[in-house]
């Protein structure tokens, strides 16, 4: 993936669908997901050096979109609103994943986790990525991902 050879518009066409899918699954809101995706690409236009070419573009984009989605969840007053609504549901549960209420609970938990852990939680719980893949996206060791994921239930309990 050459850094500046394609235009940002071309990158948007090629990679926009996967970025939008991710943003949708994290935010659960179509309009805000579109905003995040557009903002991510617009920021690339202004600061192309963000993508340093150290990883594949898809990998970089997964991380960049996740980061923006988490900021969006934290900002815009969603934090308080989600917390009020879902604080009780945010603790670990034993059911099978995928239900909307459960995703809402995951989002409620995400906004309260430390940034790195929140990003890992998104990749693991929402994306269903392996430890190895998360390590690649975040540029850290697989072992660190494992350790941080193990600490999640403790964080969830504390937050509760």
């Amino acid at each position, binding site marked *: *993936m050459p850094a500046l050879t394609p235009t940002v*518009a071309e990158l948007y066409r090629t990679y926009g669908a996967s970025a939008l899918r991710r943003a949708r699954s994290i935010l659960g809101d179509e309009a805000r997901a579109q905003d995040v995706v557009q903002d991510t690409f617009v920021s690339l*236009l202004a600061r*192309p050096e963000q993508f340093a070419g150290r990883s*594949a573009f*898809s*990998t970089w984009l997964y991380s960049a979109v996740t980061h923006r989605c988490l900021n969006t969840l934290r900002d815009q007053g969603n934090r308080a609103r989600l917390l009020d609504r879902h604080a009780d549901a945010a603790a*670990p549960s034993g059911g099978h994943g995928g239900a909307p209420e459960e995703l809402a609970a995951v989002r409620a938990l995400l906004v309260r986790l430390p940034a790195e852990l929140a990003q890992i939680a998104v990749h693991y719980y929402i994306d269903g990525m392996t430890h190895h893949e998360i390590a690649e996206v975040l540029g850290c060791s697989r072992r660190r991902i494992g350790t941080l994921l193990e600490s999640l239930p403790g964080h969830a309990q504390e937050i509760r």
Partner: protein
Amino acid sequence: MQRAFQRPSGCLSDLVIDRLIVGELDDAARVEVLGHAAACTWCTARIAELRGEQQAFAAGPVPLALHRPKRRILGLSAALAAAAALALVFLPDRSGPEPEPAPELEDVVRTKGAAHVGLYVERDGKLSPLLSGEHIVPGARVQPTYTTTEPGHLAIFGIDGAGRVQRHYPADAPASAPVRPARDEPLPFSLAFDATPGRERLVAVFCEQAFDTAALERRLADDVAVEPGPGCTVDRIDLHKDER
């Protein structure tokens, strides 16, 4: 907390499938991924689904804000290149040896949910966003766009420094124009500002129902504040025309 998206154990993640679709995987990874998919109906279906999504998206419109010619930054340090890029985006009509500090893009690109109008100024074949409060040079050509998540009706007025009101859109109909949900959809006109320095205001009114633009124009001319009625929002953009 459970994994929200459950795929069969050992199956391909969306990241791997995305990378397969856009051709990012090297030969070895590709052979491995396709080998798995050949024996797995779940992954075969998921690959088809994501490929369909990608193709549909690629065939769709690209937001106007991303339509800028490819910029090559050669022979500049990274910091200088970044400054040059910011200057191109944010200082559409000013030039000088020292670019002024520019706001972070995140702060100025509108992301609010309400219907709104965007302005883009064209210079040297490039489009840059023009934001409320910015300065423009007389004669600049500005392309308006609109963004709305709901269908509705739109009218856009201009008010010059002397308080004269002009109906920009729709130009010659007494009623507002219907608009579909869209993001940064270019409107079928552009604005060319005359050479008189001073303030130039744009007032865009979005309503759920069609409305009488002539009545609204009279109220603007009488300097009556336009308050959004039920089901309406008003977007105001102030520009400052500088002397050339």
